[in-house]
């Protein structure tokens, strides 16, 4: 995952490579994700988040919809 100055720069970069768009988030949201994911990584008790827990983190940062879904749709 790369960083871009703006959505416009993402579009230009993708168009030059004939790539489709996925989803994007702001670097403020990236910081929220990074903190949720890694703040306890050096703890002996650390474990990977379950799909449900990860989706809760995404949703808490406004990242919702099928793109961010980890569990199969019911």
């Amino acid at each position: 995952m790369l960083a871009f100055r703006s959505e416009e720069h993402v579009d230009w970069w993708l168009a030059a490579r004939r790539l489709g768009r996925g989803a994007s988030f702001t670097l403020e949201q990236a910081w929220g994700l990074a903190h949720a994911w890694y703040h306890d990584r050096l703890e002996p008790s650390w474990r990977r988040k379950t799909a449900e827990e990860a989706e809760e983190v995404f949703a808490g940062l406004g990242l919702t919809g099928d793109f961010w879904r980890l569990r199969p749709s019911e």
Partner: protein
Amino acid sequence: MTVADTDVRLHLMERFLADGRPPSVAEAAAALEATEEGVAGAYGRLQDAHVIVLAPGSLDVWMANPLSAVPTPFPVETERGTYYANCIWDALGIPAMLGCDGTVAASCADCGDPLPVRIRNGEIHGAGGVAPFAVPAARWWDNIGHT
């Protein structure tokens, strides 16, 4: 002597942060007083559990997220040292993991202009950019080198 996966994981991260590179299987086995077979097994299980990524066809650690064993466009300067991250998410994950300030010397992948991001006292500064994902979250681990 058998070795617990958690002990291997913690040793790997500790040495990665101290040395700037992950330990080899032989180095970790010597430090943990374990057999190389035992550590190799743990490396394999940690990869299967999506905790680390080994370089293809080897037992060399490529990623121990958020850290990268190879140079990337995401160097992160912290009071503990300067490390490479796998992506912008992981770059921010390094100060989050260490609980310290950090500066990510990122640049726009399109135009190359500097896009420095600073973490100070748990807050992000200088972050006007965006980070796109190419593939949906459920498929990130199909190829973690391309998300």
